[in-house]
């Protein structure tokens, strides 16, 4: 395997890991505040559709991105209403959002565009174009570092860099700001936060809102960055892999980056080599596809460290019980 092949696989890894990373960080905010969210998939899907639909209609990808975020926020608000205000079961609300998004996107797409639940292909300003980083072309011929910089790091759409920048930002917000401290506290011991006179409901809504924004970016990236349009069910289970990555990362931002890159790498390798021949035996591609889930189960079973979810996760907060 030569350097160029490795760079190409890592390049593919970065593209595949970006939606996972954004969705994973979205889940991180929500779950750290004590709201389990298995509706990441649905929110991404809704965002993917509305970003593509608006980008196609308006011809501006930025309006598309805003529409995607708005759609995702609307579903987040629904999740918040059901699980924070009305104290419903968070898992059921999340499942409902997934179903709602899967059905609604196809229905609206069919009604608007009559193309079998697709949006028309985006072109020109309707898509996020790859960005060439400064000096990428000039440095392309430098041995080793040249291809790494010009092929691997340069030439992605802006949302990839946004996703990467979100990791330190998330770390800083959660662990270095007052808001972050309270957000984490609300997921561990909401009664303590309430006693201190800070609104539990407000904090949880804020967390769910941030989750909505990040899912919106993730969905828009799928439809307008990686692809040029929406196809039904195009998230194809990425929301669930992001949840697996979140558990794998033990609800920590930097670990989340590592987990998503690892899962992205596994996918990229599986796509590049159908069956990996190790001489003595062959690893089938199905095994590579299943590996993220297997690794997550291994982590959950406690073989490699312990994954402890936020203590108040999944429980609606009731004052004065």
């Amino acid at each position, binding site marked *: 395997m030569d350097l160029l092949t490795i760079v*190409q696989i890592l390049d593919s890894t970065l593209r595949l890991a970006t939606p996972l990373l954004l969705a994973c960080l979205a889940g991180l905010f929500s779950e750290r505040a004590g709201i389990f969210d298995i509706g990441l998939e649905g929110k991404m899907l809704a965002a993917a559709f509305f970003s593509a639909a608006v980008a196609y209609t308006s011809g501006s990808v930025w309006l598309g991105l805003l529409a995607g975020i708005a759609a995702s926020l609307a579903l987040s608000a629904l999740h918040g209403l059901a699980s924070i205000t009305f104290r419903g079961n968070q898992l059921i609300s999340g499942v409902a959002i997934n179903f709602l998004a899967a059905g609604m996107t196809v229905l609206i797409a*069919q009604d608007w565009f009559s193309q*079998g639940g697709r949006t028309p*292909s985006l072109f020109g300003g309707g898509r996020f174009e790859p960005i060439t980083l400064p000096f990428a072309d000039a440095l392309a011929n430098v041995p080793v570092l040249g291809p790494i910089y010009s092929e691997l790091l340069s030439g992605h759409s802006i949302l990839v860099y946004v996703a990467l920048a979100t990791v330190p930002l998330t770390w800083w917000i959660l662990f270095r700001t007052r808001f972050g401290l309270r957000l984490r506290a609300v997921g561990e011991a909401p009664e303590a936060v309430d006693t201190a006179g800070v609104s539990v409901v407000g904090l949880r809504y804020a967390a769910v809102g941030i989750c909505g924004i990040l899912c919106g970016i993730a969905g828009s990236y799928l439809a307008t960055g990686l*692809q040029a349009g929406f*196809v039904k069910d*195009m998230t194809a289970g990425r929301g669930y892999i992001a949840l697996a990555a979140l558990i794998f990362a033990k609800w920590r931002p930097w670990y989340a980056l590592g987990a998503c890159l690892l899962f992205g790498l596994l996918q990229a390798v599986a796509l590049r080599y159908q069956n990996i021949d190790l001489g003595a035996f062959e690893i089938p591609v199905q095994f590579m596809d299943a590996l993220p889930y297997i690794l997550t189960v291994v982590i959950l079973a406690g073989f490699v460290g312990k994954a402890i979810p936020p203590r108040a996760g999944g429980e609606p907060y009731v004052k004065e019980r």
Partner: protein
Amino acid sequence: MTRMQKFFGATAALALSAGAAMAEPALIFDLGGKFDKSFNEAAFTGAKAWADETGNSFREIELQSEAQREQALRRFAESGANPIVMTGFAFGDALGQVAPDYPDTKFAIIDMVVDAPNVRSVVFNEHEGSYLVGMMAAMASESGTVGFIGGMDIPLIRKFACGYVQGVKAVNADAEVIQNMTGTTPAAWNDPVKGSELTKAQISQGADVVYAAAGGTGVGVLQTAADEDILSIGVDSNQNYMHPGKILTSMLKRVDVAVYEAFTSGEDLETGINVMGIGNNGIGYALDEHNKDLITEEMKAAVDEAAAKISSGELVVHDYMADSSCPAE
């Protein structure tokens, strides 16, 4: 007012009885929906062509859920529609149960074989069409490496792949064909992101023509191929218009012809297995204003010659589903 109601009632009854006497044909679309730009829409096109030509009408329903299959079949059969045509292999089980209950009604199912005396099973020789587009891919390729991207890894898609490889090798025995399947679950039909990544991976391994037989995943394949400036090949219906000048051709599966023929024969529909291949215009390749500059005279001549040989039986393309193996890799 009551008189009016009676009047309307009488006309309605008259219309109903008239409908029953004419025995309208019926068409049931699968879950993909009538306007899916592919399989179901082709069926609708065939039915519409028949209606325009004969001036008769037909009945239709778009399924909304799995549970409606049997219900829709029974409703149409009870109301006297004949023949009843349905698109998609997923109707197999439902039809197997319903067909014996209505021995006087003729049914036609596309893409599936149901063994009953009043059922016509229409199957397509996809491997023959794939062979033709494989030949074109090999002739259009400059690198000598071409790609195949399948949807879900099922025997039907392997049949496409196998025919394609045989076509490529027939033109250039040294050509390399990179084959990838998107996945092993139904999600593989709708994952354009994976389709794009597979295309990029194949391009980096030298492929300069990619054939997608992957449903919605194929949208990503065609898009990436167009973005990266290589050629691609569409499937099922004519997809040339999606990226004019970037799609070499499309492998056509003439579902419209199958529906048109079934409607035309009406109640005298011939039952049994009906194989649609190159010989009876059931399979072909697309040539229109979007790809005419890509297809050279030489290419067209070679492919048409092969098509003639296939339909005369002189050339036999191996069918993967016959013995679950492929002679060419």
